[in-house]
């Protein structure tokens, strides 16, 4: 099972990376962007997906400052990530 862990900075904690992106985008001509946050994406193949929350609490995230969300993707793939970026919705 391929699993993704989406880690974002906890609400209310200063996120300078997100701010930097938010400041830089209008300078490149991208308007109408708000609320930018930058976090971490961890992708892994696991035999037992029920272990993932424990992995998150122990190692993958710091619960004091980060929230996370676990998303299971394809069943046990060794997939080629798209060679070209895809737009999924």
């Amino acid at each position, binding site marked *: 099972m391929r699993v993704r862990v989406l880690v974002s900075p906890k609400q209310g*904690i*200063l996120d*300078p*990376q997100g701010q930097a992106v938010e400041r830089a985008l209008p300078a490149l001509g991208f308007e109408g962007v708000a609320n930018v946050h930058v976090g971490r994406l961890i992708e892994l193949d696991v035999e037992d997906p029920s272990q993932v929350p424990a992995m998150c609490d122990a*190692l*993958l995230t*710091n619960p*004091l*400052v980060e929230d996370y969300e676990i998303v299971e993707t394809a069943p046990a793939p060794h997939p080629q990530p798209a060679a070209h970026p895809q737009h999924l919705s």
Partner: protein
Amino acid sequence: MKFGVVRFPGSCDEVDAQLACERVGDAVLLWHADRDLQGVDGVVVPGGFSYGDYLRAGAIARFAPVMESVAEFAREGGLVLGICNGFQVLCEAGLLPGALLPNETLRFVFRQVNLQVVDSGTPFTRACAPGDTLSIPTKHASGRYFSPAPVDVVLRYAPGENPNGSQDDIAGVRNEAGNVFGLMPHPEHAVDPLTGSVDGLKIFESMRASLTSRVAA
């Protein structure tokens, strides 16, 4: 008086810390994979980039076998000093409160900073007078201290000198019991007039004095 300085893969300032300890006592390196603390009287978790700082600074190192012994040592009241990466490791390990986040500038910064001694009553700062200022280098990419709950602050960056956006200018904190202390600046790089200031020596001298009086008691 014997200090033990932990060496993780990726530690960088462990020999510097050892040299600093040796100015006030004996010091040995403690290998990350060994649980044996070799009977040391105090432990230093040094600076550097343990495990490359990958994932989060200190996140992987806290699981090294030696850290189980360090945690045990701390629970029994042993003195544990965490410097920079060592501070990050101690926070990740829950031996100190709070977390160290990426610098507000998002850059690594080296800077000689002035630190105000907020609490000169700890075993790590007893050689300082209250309100002393220490000139010590800082160098890190993740030194922005954050804690949702009130903490026992030991050192603050002098006004206007906060290099990383740390909450309330916090540079160093202790645990409630007072036997575990972590700071982002590097006192081991301020022990020799040839290479900078000597203000950092006060931290090591304080530890020696605390340990000596304990042994005597």
